[in-house]
């Protein structure tokens, strides 16, 4: 097997097998029928709209994971994706619901507004990191909490909110601002903005492999000292990377807002930012790997619903996800060391001859 391929594929495989085994033990201890539970998890994919739901969720997770992964490339931990997408989501919904524009321009403006807001929310921790040396993990987590307050404030009925039954939401975005989907009849509808995830994925690949910025990004991550010696301005890299990451984070809520909800409400799903971190780790910041990780994660999330029906606590899925993330990073490290040892031995042999 190609060693590069092996070191990319083997760790996630080990992690998944290990986590399934671990969860089987947990399930067995808590008295569930293990084969039946795992069977239900797999069989649910073919039922009703599950397959389409998985793809839709994966599209959202993909955006979140790319937003996180860009920072990870240079060891910049943007834990703030969570807050960035929520603030961007509400601003996008307010902008989209507040103006009328022709069909194509309208969603485009919403997308730009969302990216701009996400980037603006990321700018604060970026500046704090670059110019005040505040660790981005702390500052972005604080920004996440503050984002909760800001969205709650913006959703106030006397600000931009609208009371609907028990829920508060923004005004509905008119039809010109929404994006249709690809219908599969009774199988559900795939978000039209799935294309957005594809574009972001391709753009991310191009950025990493075909641009000077991508080179500087990876260089800064692999060796900050070498990067500095090579004339890469570390402060500028921090700020621009955070801004890009925040802009992509701003897109996270759009497939759902423009394709399904047409508004941002108090009950809009939380936690995509943290899912993004997990998926980015799983996919090892690689555009293709993240796609695989997003699909796996969406599959696991969905299977929680199916488990509820057979009386197994769905939280077993959360444990499985946590175990996968932790074991995948351990596995990547272990395989890296193995490769390193193998390489050393190989070099040793060549030298000895």
């Amino acid at each position: 097997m190609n060693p590069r391929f092996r070191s990319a594929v083997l760790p996630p495989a080990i992690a998944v097998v290990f986590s399934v085994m671990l969860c089987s033990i947990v399930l067995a201890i808590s008295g569930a029928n293990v084969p039946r539970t795992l069977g239900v998890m797999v069989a649910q994919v073919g039922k009703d709209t599950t397959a389409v739901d998985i793809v839709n969720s994966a599209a959202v997770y993909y955006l979140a994971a790319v937003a996180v992964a860009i920072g990870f490339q240079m060891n910049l931990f943007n834990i703030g994706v969570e807050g960035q997408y929520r603030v961007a989501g509400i601003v996008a919904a307010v902008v989209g619901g507040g103006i009328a524009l022709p069909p194509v321009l309208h969603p485009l403006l919403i997308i730009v507004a969302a990216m701009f807001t996400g980037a603006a929310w990321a700018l604060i921790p970026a500046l704090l990191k670059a110019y005040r040396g505040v660790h981005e993990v702390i500052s972005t987590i604080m920004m996440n909490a503050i984002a909760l307050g800001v969205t709650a404030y913006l959703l106030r009925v006397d600000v931009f909110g609208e009371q609907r039954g028990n829920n508060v939401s923004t005004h509905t975005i008119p039809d010109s601002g929404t994006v249709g989907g690809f219908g599969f009849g009774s199988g559900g509808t795939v978000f039209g903005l799935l294309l957005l995830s594809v574009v972001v994925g391709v753009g991310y690949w191009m950025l990493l492999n075909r641009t000077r910025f991508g080179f500087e990004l990876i260089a800064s991550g692999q060796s900050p000292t070498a990067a500095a010696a090579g004339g890469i301005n570390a402060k500028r890299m921090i700020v621009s990377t955070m801004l890009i990451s925040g802009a992509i984070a701003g897109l996270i809520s759009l497939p759902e807002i423009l394709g399904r909800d047409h508004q941002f409400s108090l009950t809009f799903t939380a936690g995509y930012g943290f899912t993004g971190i997990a998926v980015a780790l799983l996919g090892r910041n690689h555009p293709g790997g993240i796609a695989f990780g997003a699909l796996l994660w969406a599959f696991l999330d969905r299977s929680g619903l199916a488990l509820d029906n057979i009386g197994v606590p769905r939280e077993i899925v959360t444990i499985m996800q946590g175990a996968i993330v932790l074991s995948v990073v351990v596995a990547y490290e272990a395989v890296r060391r193995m490769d390193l040892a193998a390489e050393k031995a190989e070099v040793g042999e060549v030298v000895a001859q």
Partner: protein
Amino acid sequence: MSTPTEVNVLNKARRRPLFADTQPAPWVRGVSWAVLVITALAITSYVTELPQLTSSGTMQSAIRLALPIMLAGLGGLWAERAGVVNIGLEGMMILGTWGAAWAGYQWGPWAGVIAGAAFGALGGLLHALATVTFGVNHIVSGVAINLLGAGVTKYLSTLIFEPVSRNPRESPTVPKFDTYSSQPFGRWLGELEETQRFGISDVAGVLRGMITGLSPLTMLSILLVPLSFYLLWRTAFGLRLRSCGENPRAADSLGVQVNRYKYIAVIISGALAGLGGAALVVNPGQTGYLEGQTGGRGFIGLAAMIFGNWRPGGMLTGSLLFGYTDALQLRQGPSTVHALLYAALLVLVVLAIYEALRLRWMFAALCMGGAAVFLLLYALTDELPEQLTPYTPHLVTLVVLALSSQRLRPPAASGQNYRSDA
């Protein structure tokens, strides 16, 4: 051309600042800050007619709220002093809340404290395994432990708590510690506080809040701060442990078993975070385990540690600051937090004058600018939106870190992996 040091020397010779350009002794700084802050709060509470700012009730809940933050911060301190960054404090704290509730509702609060610490220590062990043995990036491992901690407790709660409490997100009611107050000193302070005289009542309120309604866990935890200082800075064990965080290679060459010390430190760190979780459960205030009850306190604890420059005393000050703002927003948040703007303004003006006397014009100007912003905010609004006030501690964390981060010195090898064979 002259080098920067020469310029400095020349500048110093030319200008004579009123105060010498040296840092005052730590205790002098601590006492002056305390006096400054209490005076500012007393003036504010007098001007705005909000006695809550310095009431014993506020101080009492400030200490209750600061306690978990302080324990998490202490946990972060132990780990980082041995060179391991512990972002997983939050997850370990969540494990601690669950463990404390599980043991607490069956066998009483002391069992809860022990189980909370033990569950947190398990999280610490996992973090040590990942970072020390497997060399995983510390932040990655920490983030994974936060996910895992939340997941495991959710699962266990559904499995074990739901049959009893009828709610998968909540534990059955956990018996609480009794609280103790130092009487009759407290009663005398109470009488002083009621007189509502400027200054005296404020100090009395603050002191009374500090000695009323203390649980054994609170007292024990506060003792852990000087104990940690003693262990880490005054014993051979502590010196070895800190050497792993400063220069593991040198420590290794002197025979310190780096990995063993890192394991010990990270497990203690997890136990302290778990204890912080237990404090949320078995101290009066909440009924028991509640999903999401830690609310980022593990992270705020880490921020308190950074604010405190990786030292126990500073960390304690940081956690009191966050505990105080948290307590304040719970008491008529929109108006009291609004009044806090006024107090911050006063502190900044004093700082600006002090810095100006030391001829540090840049910093003085920054302080004056900040004061102007606060004045504007204070004058233009009557109270803050109630949706925003719950996040006052987070905002204060950001502002405080932005102001303090530059002069800090973390352990030199914190966050780096060390392998003796590589």
